[in-house]
């Protein structure tokens, strides 16, 4: 077996509020390999976003280690690019094109001409060529997320970190964006660490799913997905198995099955 691209070993994450010290994640371990579509799935409050921020280098673990290519993660850097849930992640004072060019010229120190060319290539990939000179506030939520994804991919990070990037979109747009993401993955086989609270999204997007329980976040299971809600040998649906692992006991029809 090859060495993992990212290894998270016994990581505990804590943060301070005005009154309390909160443990968001407790001794979480997992490995991520190149070209993985690794999904972290759990209910709200399981510390999955905090975990992603720790991988991004925005938060230092109180215990354990996060290693990228064998080197300890010490801070934010352009080798791990974030795609956030918020629509305001594009800088409003730059056009779509300038947003990506700015990321490329500061992040990777590539030349202006190269950056321009790459930018247009990736804008075309997410079908936004005609909006290249638009300012972000004139775009719809889905378009903004597509620009954010194009920007992140153009930077060619070791890992793409996606923090519920489609959660604020309407159901139809979300489904289309999931398909587009998989299409892009077929093209370039990038590595992505994807956080979500939606079971169908996890099954669809991920090839490997880390299930986390809440308060504090702990790893419950790590399972495989082939992109569809398959039945296992005993005839149980994958979504049903995930539901049982996350919430325990009998599953009710229709719970947490939004898309």
């Amino acid at each position, binding site marked *: 077996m090859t060495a993992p691209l990212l290894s998270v070993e016994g990581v505990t994450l804590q943060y301070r509020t005005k009154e309390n010290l909160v443990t968001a994640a407790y001794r979480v371990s997992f490995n991520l390999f190149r070209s993985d579509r690794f999904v972290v799935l759990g209910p709200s409050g399981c510390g999955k976003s905090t975990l992603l921020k720790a991988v991004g280098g925005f938060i230092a673990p109180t215990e354990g280690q996060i290693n990228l290519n064998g080197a300890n993660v010490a801070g934010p850097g352009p080798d791990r690019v974030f795609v956030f849930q918020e629509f305001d992640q594009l800088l409003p004072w730059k056009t779509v094109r300038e947003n990506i060019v700015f990321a490329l010229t500061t*992040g990777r120190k590539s030349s202006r001409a190269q950056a321009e060319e790459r930018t247009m290539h990736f804008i075309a990939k997410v079908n936004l060529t005609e909006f290249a000179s638009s300012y972000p506030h004139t775009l719809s939520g889905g378009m903004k997320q597509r620009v954010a994804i194009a920007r992140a991919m153009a930077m060619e990070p070791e890992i793409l970190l996606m923090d519920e990037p489609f959660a604020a979109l309407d159901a139809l747009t979300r489904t289309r964006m999931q398909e587009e993401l998989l299409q892009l993955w077929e093209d370039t086989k990038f590595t992505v660490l994807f956080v979500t609270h939606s079971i169908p999204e996890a099954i669809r997007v991920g090839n490997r799913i880390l299930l986390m329980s809440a308060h504090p976040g702990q790893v419950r299971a790590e399972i495989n997905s082939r992109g569809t809600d398959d039945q296992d040998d005993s005839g149980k649906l994958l979504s049903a198995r995930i539901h049982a692992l996350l919430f325990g006991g009998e599953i009710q029809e229709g719970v947490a099955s939004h898309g």
Partner: protein
Amino acid sequence: MADARAVPERPEMFYSVATAGFPVVEKSLSAWEKLYESGVFRKTALLIIMAAAWELYARWLNNPLLVPTFSATVRAFFASIKSGALPQAAVYTISMLLKGYVAGLAIAALLTALASSSRLGADLLETLTAMFNPLPSIALLPLALIWFGLGAGSVIFVLIHAVLWSVALNTFAGFRSVSPTWRMVGQNYGLSRAGYIARILIPGAFPSILTGLKVGWAFAWRTLIAAELVFGVSSGSGGLGWFIFERKNQLLIADVFAGLLTVILFGLLVENLIFKTIENRTVRRWGMQI
């Protein structure tokens, strides 16, 4: 018996959608409606009405020592421009204002940098602002006269005081309100500290910074005119405030009004040309302000 709250049964209905023959889909507005849409037109109309009201009232009052007519004011305005007294005063005032404004901005930048880099710096800025912002700059003039003498130094000192606090306070508040997402995006790119401030914090806080610049400009302008009224002559020339004060002593009331008109004109010019242009090219275009 049927339940009174039962929803009535209705047949399903289908309609065909028309493709032509609507009364109005899109039609261009009439010339008058278009004109009325223009802010410049509406404001100009208001100004004309106010000038007319002034003219009528002054004629009815018929006392040029109290209120000269609008036409007399305009005549005095052009006569003073022709004689060179008004332009000279205006140039003097503006150059003084710019010196004080720029110095104030520089110190504000320094204070904001200090405040952004440490908690103690932030406490310092907040405390200083709370102490000095409510203090009218002109109240410092007597003290400034003792410290810096009867000259440009004193005026610049009070101007700095007028500009500094509103600019520093607004800039700092703007920095603090920059969205955490933009901050993380900036850190994610691996920007240097200076690059982070110049390319994330300043544009992100620009609506607040612009407000600070505007308020600072207005404070400086008022303070300067007031300071010039108190003492106008320094090294042989006086500004607009002195122009007004001097003409009042000579009972040239139309000239006093012409001086005031100049002050107003400069205010309108800076607000509507300079600040409006900056606003249109930045925060409005970026959709950060409507």
